[in-house]
């Protein structure tokens, strides 16, 4: 088998899984249906992950850039099977596999979920391999459509609205992307990155230059919506918070990052090969980098303001995509490697957090962190899983998040961005402390938190567990309630009775936790692996990326984060957070922010 065929097989396997799952859906016999559904998951999500092993050897030896079906460059769709493809595939397939594993233990399991997950996985892999602009548009749309439906699978009003808003904003932005494709095709007559670069490098008329620049702005602006960077992040929090937990883990962990790296492949190809566009690309990435830096701070504050546990995590995802964009925007091999390292460590930490927090809040019957108490009763494993994710996200040693976040900050050492990124990490610590409230008060009426923080901690009563304020969260999470377990209402009325953790949930969280720990403890070989695939020259340097020393900035982060959390619990702090939380939000705001972003990008690019 030719090496390219192995790569194509990796792309096709999720489509095979999708076909089997759809066939399974037509079967009446539930035993056959379940068996085929399981097979679809194995074929669509597990086998590609296994295939990545031998593919590493193939790609390490030589990257491949074939045209599909060996078509000529003018007509064919170009794909890139290189180190970036392998690393993004690893990220996407780990997320999809663990999401599938977790969801096997919930009511959501079945051919519909499996087929959508396989479709989403295919979209992720195809996006990672794409080296053709129109193909990238189609991959983004496939990714989007699978995600809209997965969010709506939660089956309640809030999820429907979140899915609708996500779809409208995202699809509108994709039309701008298509306009960008139109502009570049009009000028160059090519769609592959290499073809576009060749024609542009050969020289174009002065009148066409403005069209090329405007097209690039449209493409960058539209992709920024998918990445959810400031100010076009508005669709994300509700979509990620409303989705079933397994889906939230993939959406937050993987889905917002792959488009960024796919955009990088396009922009950096232009930057390297088209001299007259290089300054424009550099300016655009700088603008994105600045937006990313501010995103970390703004989203952290918004995260701290939330009461809904999953909203805290969703805003935290926006904050961390800011770190990734900040590193990526340096447009250097080192920046790219660090961006991937943080994307991976964040995906693992956010995955375990969404699963553990989602499971605990389901069992408590409420997602409001100011009301939910007694998570510890649900077992030390869930608390341990939460702790590993939270510590990694808050960049504490020796976890993966610590290495990658410090590496991002190190890139900006002695620049103003360093201060912003450092302060943002305090906010993340404070947000994680706020989230930890789910696990407080393991026994009713006996607080173990210092009494000087006077904000009342009402013990959860059965009435609160099913009150209207929590009905939305309860009903949404109901879609992912554990199969065969006691119902929410009976759970609430009997207090926080401990329930057995199903095997699928246990292994999904355990694997996420293991990856969080190993990517930190074995940082040296992990960084070497990433660098060797993304930038062999960087990997050859001995001091490419330094491993941070523990206890330095980590200690400051803990103290400052705790102080910030303490302040947020004072009366004034609470009022301020409430004011921010209750800021007006509307659909017009989501689309309006996108218009402003496109306009601002264009203005900043064209104004000398």
């Amino acid at each position: 088998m030719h090496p390219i065929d192995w790569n194509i097989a990796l792309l096709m396997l999720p489509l095979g899984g999708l076909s089997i799952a759809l066939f399974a859906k037509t079967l009446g016999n539930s035993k056959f249906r379940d068996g085929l559904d399981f097979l679809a998951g194995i074929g669509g999500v597990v086998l590609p992950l296994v295939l990545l092993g031998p593919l590493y050897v193939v790609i390490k030896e030589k990257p491949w850039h074939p045209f599909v079906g060996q078509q000529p460059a003018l007509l064919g769709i170009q794909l890139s099977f290189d180190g970036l493809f392998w690393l993004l595939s690893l990220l996407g397939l780990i997320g999809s596999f663990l999401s599938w594993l977790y969801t096997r233990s919930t009511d959501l399991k079945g051919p519909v979920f499996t087929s959508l997950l396989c479709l989403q996985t295919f979209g992720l892999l195809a996006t990672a391999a794409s080296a053709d602009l129109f193909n990238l548009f189609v991959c983004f749309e496939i990714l989007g459509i699978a995600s809209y439906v997965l969010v709506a699978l939660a089956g309640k009003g809030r999820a429907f609205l979140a899915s609708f808003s996500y779809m409208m904003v995202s699809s509108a932005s994709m039309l701008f992307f298509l306009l960008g494709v139109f502009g570049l095709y009009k000028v160059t007559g090519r769609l592959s990155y290499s073809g576009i670069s060749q024609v542009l490098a050969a020289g174009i008329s002065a009148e066409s230059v403005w069209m090329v620049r405007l097209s690039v702005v449209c493409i960058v602006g539209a992709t920024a919506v998918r990445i959810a960077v400031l100010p076009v992040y508005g669709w994300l929090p509700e979509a990620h918070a409303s989705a079933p937990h397994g889906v939230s883990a993939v959406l937050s962990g993987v889905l917002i990052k792959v488009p960024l790296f796919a955009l990088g492949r396009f922009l950096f190809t232009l930057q390297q090969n088209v001299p007259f566009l290089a300054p424009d690309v550099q300016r655009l990435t700088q603008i994105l980098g600045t937006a990313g830096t501010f995103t970390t701070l703004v989203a952290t504050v918004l995260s701290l303001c939330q009461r809904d546990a999953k909203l805290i995590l969703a805003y935290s995802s926006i904050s961390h995509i800011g770190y990734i964009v900040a590193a990526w925007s340096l447009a250097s091999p080192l920046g790219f490697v660090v961006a991937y390292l943080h994307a991976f460590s964040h995906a693992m930490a956010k995955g375990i957090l969404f699963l553990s927090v989602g499971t605990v809040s389901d069992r408590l019957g409420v997602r409001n962190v100011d009301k939910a108490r007694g998570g510890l009763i649900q077992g030390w494993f869930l608390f341990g899983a939460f702790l590993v994710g939270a510590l990694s996200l808050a960049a504490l040693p020796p976890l993966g998040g610590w290495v990658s976040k410090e590496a991002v900050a190190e890139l900006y050492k002695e620049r103003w961005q360093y201060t912003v990124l450092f302060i943002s990490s305090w906010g993340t610590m404070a947000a994680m402390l706020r989230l930890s409230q789910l696990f407080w008060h393991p026994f009713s009426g006996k607080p173990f938190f210092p009494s000087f923080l006077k904000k009342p901690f009402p013990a959860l009563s059965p009435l609160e567990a099913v009150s209207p304020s929590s009905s939305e969260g309860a009903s949404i999470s109901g879609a992912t309630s554990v199969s065969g377990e006691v119902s929410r209402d009976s759970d609430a009325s009997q207090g926080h009775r401990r329930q057995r953790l199903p095997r699928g949930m246990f292994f999904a969280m355990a694997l996420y936790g293991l990856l969080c720990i190993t990517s930190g403890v074995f940082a040296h070989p992990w960084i070497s692996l990433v660098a060797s695939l993304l930038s062999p020259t960087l990997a050859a340097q001995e001091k490419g990326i330094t491993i941070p020393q523990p206890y330095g900035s980590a200690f400051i982060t803990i103290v400052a984060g705790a102080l910030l959390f303490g302040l947020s619990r004072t009366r004034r702090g609470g009022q301020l957070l409430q004011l921010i939380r209750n800021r007006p939000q509307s659909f017009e705001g989501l689309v309006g922010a996108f218009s402003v972003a496109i306009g601002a990008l264009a203005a900043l690019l064209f104004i000398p």
Partner: protein
Amino acid sequence: MILEQLLLGMLFLAGFGGLIFCKNLIKKVFALSIMNSAVILLFMVEGDRIGKRAPLVLDSQEILLLQEMVDPLPQALMLTAVVVGLCVTAFALVLVYRLHREYGTLNIDIIYERIRDASH
């Protein structure tokens, strides 16, 4: 050609305006469809720049007339875009139906308000 492109630009902006300002969910879906159609037509018009004939080669003689044919690539691309647009519209309408069944209204502001009230 420029006039056609200007008209399509206006059509696109009309759709974009509808997406932002219409409160009715179904009108928003239609607005998105209008934007989609404007972009598809723009590609078609661009393909028309080379020639006017349908890009069908019936015999070897006609290969000589390639310069008179429209560029077939934008048409092929737009077939995909039409399918994507159809999927999005269909699913959007499903969501609108479910939202209406849940909240009894198609006004997005009222739906936002009800969800906000429920979460407070």
